[in-house]
């Protein structure tokens, strides 16, 4: 076959493929937005759900989801930062570096349902915590750990060697260099990673559905060891009654809110990257 014709065929194929992908993905967005907006109003966002989710709003689900991820962030961040500093500043042995990378980034290869199963065995059964939102936060923190470590490591590791050398020349010890020079510079990347991790954590269902959430009767929890309700598990319960139009509409509304949260976290991540970068340059 002649090459010019082949080339045209090739271009045609890629354009068609891109067209199909666009169509599928835009359909998804359109469906969620259109159906979700119909359910969304002030009352939906700020009242408790009634009649098993088919009526009322999703206030406590939003609170629960935020609670889960805020604490996941609080648990994950110091851990990730410490790991990133150690990896970047102390760990110089090539083999150890590789081993550490495999162990930490390997967490990205753990299926989300396995995190849930592990939480069930370790916290709920071995430690006897009962079903608790705090356990959910710990599990989500573990889940997003590699994302945050990777981001923090890159931003700390990419600080030019000259910064470290000039700081040492001024008589700062290694730890002082880290605290005074590297952390202020590297924090932006870490926070970016944290937000991107949260964008993922807030939408996860499988890790929290056995260990952290309950079906009804949950308000703002009174202690660390009580369940909450969360948006993803709420959508799951509503999906089971997809034939009930009212429940279905609320499911779309909750989905739109959930996607908005994901988008807000991602955007905050990008924003913090730009904002904090300019700050540290000043």
């Amino acid at each position, binding site marked *: 076959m002649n090459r010019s014709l082949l080339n045209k065929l090739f271009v045609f194929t890629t354009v068609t493929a891109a067209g199909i992908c666009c169509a599928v993905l835009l359909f998804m967005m359109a469906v*969620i937005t259109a159906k979700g907006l119909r359910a969304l109003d002030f009352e939906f966002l700020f009242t408790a759900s009634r009649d098993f989710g088919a009526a009322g709003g999703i206030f406590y689900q939003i609170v629960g989801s935020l609670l889960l991820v805020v604490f996941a962030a609080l648990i994950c961040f110091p851990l990730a930062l410490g*790991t990133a500093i150690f990896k970047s500043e102390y760990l110089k042995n090539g083999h150890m570096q590789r081993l550490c990378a495999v162990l930490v*980034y*390997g967490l*990205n290869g753990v299926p989300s349902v*396995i995190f849930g199963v592990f939480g069930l065995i370790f916290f709920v059964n071995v430690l006897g915590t009962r079903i608790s939102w705090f356990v959910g936060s710990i599990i989500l923190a573990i889940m997003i750990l590699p994302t945050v470590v990777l981001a923090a490591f890159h931003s700390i590791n990419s600080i030019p060697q000259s910064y470290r050398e000039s700081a040492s020349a001024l008589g700062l010890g290694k730890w002082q260099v880290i605290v005074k020079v590297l952390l202020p510079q590297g924090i932006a990347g870490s926070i970016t990673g944290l937000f991107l991790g949260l964008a993922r954590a807030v939408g*996860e269902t*499988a890790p929290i559905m056995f260990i952290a959430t309950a079906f009804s009767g949950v308000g703002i929890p009174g202690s660390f060891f009580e369940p909450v309700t969360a948006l993803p598990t709420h959508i799951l319960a509503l*999906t089971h009654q997809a034939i009930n139009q009212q429940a279905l509409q609320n*499911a779309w509304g909750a989905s739109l809110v959930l996607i908005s949260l994901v988008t807000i976290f991602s955007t905050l991540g990008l924003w913090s990257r730009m904002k904090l970068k300019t700050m540290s340059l000043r």
Partner: protein
Amino acid sequence: MSASARIGKGYVVASTFISAAVIVVITGFLVINSWDAIRQSGLELFTSEWNPPKQKFGILAMVYGSVVVTVISLALALPLGLATAIFTSEMLPARFRLYVKSLLELLAGIPSIIYGLIGIVFLSTWVEHAFDLQSGRTVLTGGLLLAVMVLPTIITLWDDALHNVPRKYRETARGLGLYNFEVIRDAVLPLARTDVIGAALLGLGRVLGETMAVMLVIGSIDKIPGSVFNVLVPGQTMTSKLGREIAETAVGSLHFSAMIFMGLILLLFVLSLTIVALTYFYNPEQRLYE
């Protein structure tokens, strides 16, 4: 060394230790808890009958389901994703590229439970009508849904992989009088190959480990159909089985142990895929270009 420096060093060492230990602890717990099943059922775990009242725990039907769903979704998502990534990376004008990339990243962030909702409301009814089935909850539905789900991730990763290949290679190839498709086939793709394979492996891992969307649309019956190529019947994957059954199994029972064994198999598989992908393929040090 001052006190704060000592505390600081202790802190970073401890956090690294914890971060690295987590995955070992997870695997360890799964191994310990699946020990009963391995000892008592042994090779019977790899039969196809799962029947808790009769103490039969064969995970083959679930393994089959996972494999078939994965094959279907990748057979669709990989070619479509590659062609689309070539389009966005090589043909799309730069000013549109940013928008397309942002849109893709937004889509890659849609939680899987929402894909499940769409699967139940739209996809399963479409499959039911298109093939004139009794029920749209089939293995095919699960595969299609996962294909849609993994597409944005695959396209973004591949788009980056192709775009990272420096311009000079393309220019040289074009200078030799090659057509666009030859430039991509003979220069760009071979150079980007480690990243491309790595991204495909990551996609494979993601599809295998996905739970919520599959669990809602697959029909959840632990059966291998009469013809193993019949995908228009309900089935069960390892993840959907875990999602549906783990909460009702008593800890310490053989049933529980067998469930955990299945989880362990899943974990080991996805974990090794990811590690291989990250170490040997999706790794800047392994790149074939400067």
